[in-house]
């Protein structure tokens, strides 16, 4: 299997709340730090990426924010405009306003048109070699399959015309595992793991895109092993706990309770991790990122995640 960051187009998806955008940002940062010209794009323009990189708002035109790293956000209307300019050489840009509006309706009605304007833009950037790597902070798990299968869906629906001639090369780029990969971000919790397994199967069945990796975010640290846990349990008994309290001049209960909570949380998650590993094709690598006990978001956090990712990738 091609190394994760050796590909040229990575779609990063995940259930809401698992840290999909953070991981996509860290992935792009890590690649950029290794000298690859990288484009990071946010598909649903929430502005989170701009906030993570502590920079001004992003838009459809990529903007370089760090050496080798550019950011953009998807805008299907702008994508349509660019598409028309490149493909039809429509001279009067000013007239595209109402046209775009009309297309908006077509796009709303015809499945895949909007999706293809999104996916098409990334494939185009890859084909034109503007960047070594395009990282897409893609739609959440519920919508990603529709997006990735759009070119094929259009191919099935549209028999002739310019769009038809365009979908073929899109399908080629998306289907080449050496070029394109999907990354699912998850957390070691019940529902995210269920959804990840379900999505992995759907991606295999309904799209031509290869699942490049599953990244497990927010893995809690293990406090101690089995033999030390016995020690901990003994310390929690009344006599040693009272002795501890006397020695530190305070009630040790909150600290002991917190440790018990930490152990239980970690253990519950470990079971989900096992389920995840068993439910995903063994050929797909699982990468683990630690839970961050930090105060804030921002570039420092992204750097920290990028470092962990680098360690996991062994690069």
């Amino acid at each position, binding site marked *: 299997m091609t190394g994760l960051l050796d590909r040229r187009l990575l779609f990063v998806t995940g*259930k809401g*709340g*698992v840290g999909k955008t953070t991981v996509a940002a860290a992935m792009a940062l890590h690649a950029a730090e290794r000298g690859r010209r990288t484009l990071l794009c946010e598909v649903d323009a929430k502005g989170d990426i701009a906030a993570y990189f502590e920079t001004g708002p992003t838009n459809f035109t990529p903007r370089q924010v760090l050496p080798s790293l550019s950011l953009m956000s998807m805008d299907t209307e702008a994508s349509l405009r660019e598409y028309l300019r490149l493909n039809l050489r429509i001279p009067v840009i000013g007239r595209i306003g109402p046209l775009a509006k009309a297309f908006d*309706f077509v796009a709303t009605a015809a*499945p895949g048109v909007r999706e293809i304007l999104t996916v098409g833009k990334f494939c185009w950037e890859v084909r034109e070699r503007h960047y070594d790597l395009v990282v897409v902070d893609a739609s959440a798990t519920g919508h990603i399959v529709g997006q990735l299968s759009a070119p094929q869906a259009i191919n099935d629906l549209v028999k002739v*015309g310019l769009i038809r001639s365009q979908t073929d090369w899109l399908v080629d780029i998306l289907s080449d595992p050496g070029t394109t990969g999907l990354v699912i971000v998850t957390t070691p919790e019940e*529902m995210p793991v269920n959804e990840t397994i379900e999505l992995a199967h759907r991606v295999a069945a309904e799209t031509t895109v290869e699942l490049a990796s599953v990244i497990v975010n927010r893995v809690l*640290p293990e406090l101690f092993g089995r033999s030390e846990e016995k020690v901990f349990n*003994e310390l929690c008994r009344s006599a040693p706990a009272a002795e501890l309290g006397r020695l530190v001049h305070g009630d040790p209960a909150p600290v002991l*309770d917190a440790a018990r909570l930490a152990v239980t949380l970690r253990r519950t998650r470990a079971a989900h991790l096992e389920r995840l590993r068993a439910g995903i094709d063994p050929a797909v690598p699982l990468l683990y990122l630690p839970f961050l006990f930090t105060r804030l978001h921002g570039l420092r956090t992204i750097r920290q995640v990028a470092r962990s990712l680098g360690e996991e990738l062994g690069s």
Partner: protein
Amino acid sequence: MPPRRRKEAGSRRVTLDGLLASREIVVACGPGGVGKTTTAAAAAAMAAARLGGKVLVLTVDPARRLADALGLDGIGNAERRVPAKAFEDAGVKPRGELWAAMLDAKESWDDLVRLHAPDARTRDEILSNPLYRNIAGRFVQSHDYIAMERLFEIHSEGTYDLIVVDTPPTRNALDFLDAPERMAEFFSSRLLRWLIVPYRSKIVNVASKPFYQVADRILGTQFLEDIAQFFILFQSMYSGFVERARAVHRLMADRRTSFIVVSTLEAVPLREAEFFAQALMDRRLHLGAIVLNKVLPAYLRGPHGFTVAEGFRDRSEELADALAPTVRSGDAAQIRRVLAEIGQSYLDYRVVAQRESEQQSELATVPEALVSVPYFETDVFDMAGLLRLGEQLWGP
């Protein structure tokens, strides 16, 4: 600067029971990954257990989660009763019935076509139109519309005393509210008529000519004709759609309907939740409660724990030596490691707990009920878990 409201995690002023007892529809919304589906299911389960009557939980999320939480595999589009045995296994004798349904967009669209189609021929033509078949299955936004439509349908049948609805994540949840209106607008739009006219009359409207030339080149004539055909068919159902959209809108704004916003205290979800709460109020919809899930316990923020944890971490060697003679399960080195580890762990979790507490105190929009649900040590995956969560929502 206005004075900050201070609220302890775990405190509650009003609980959800009143809301669930007095409304016919409760819509749970909020960002993804915060336990929204589980919260909706727990609220419905508690209402069925305590209040009685027929309670339905309707999930509209395209990802299939409710089934997991209810311990059912694959709830179909049709409403199904959650077996009373599920409650009995959890040691509860429910006063009422709990029903569950999941939204199958494709099946719901078909139902809708059957309902609104003027005659059998149109109905069959629509159902077999290639575009329609594709739309019903894949068309992402159509979930939002169909969800509202389905909710309306079920509510107007009058079978249930309470319907608790789970919604797609926040960014879509606004779409979810606007969907019926947008759909009506869509079918009544001038542009749409413009698009259809030439295919109907075979005379290309002068104004639309440039559009067709470009559209033809891009999409191909066949595809364009398919689209037009689709809309012509769909237009026959136009008045039904518009009327329905208005009715759905009225129902959402009705006194019988309330919204609860579910979130955690993490920065990003909470920001989205606030955004949504504000949007509800801007639309004059009833914001019944904010439910904060997975709140870390208050003992992580106390002043004493901090000193003790630091003591464990910094004086682990000295403490271990003192304790070693009385501890039988391990030597001094192991005790030292355990103490240092749990001291550090407390301090780590404390950072997160404090961050959450700050987030909560900065909450600008506070409805009549603010409910904090603690971090459960195990996942909620069965009726017992749902009811345990429900107890927290319910209050004393």
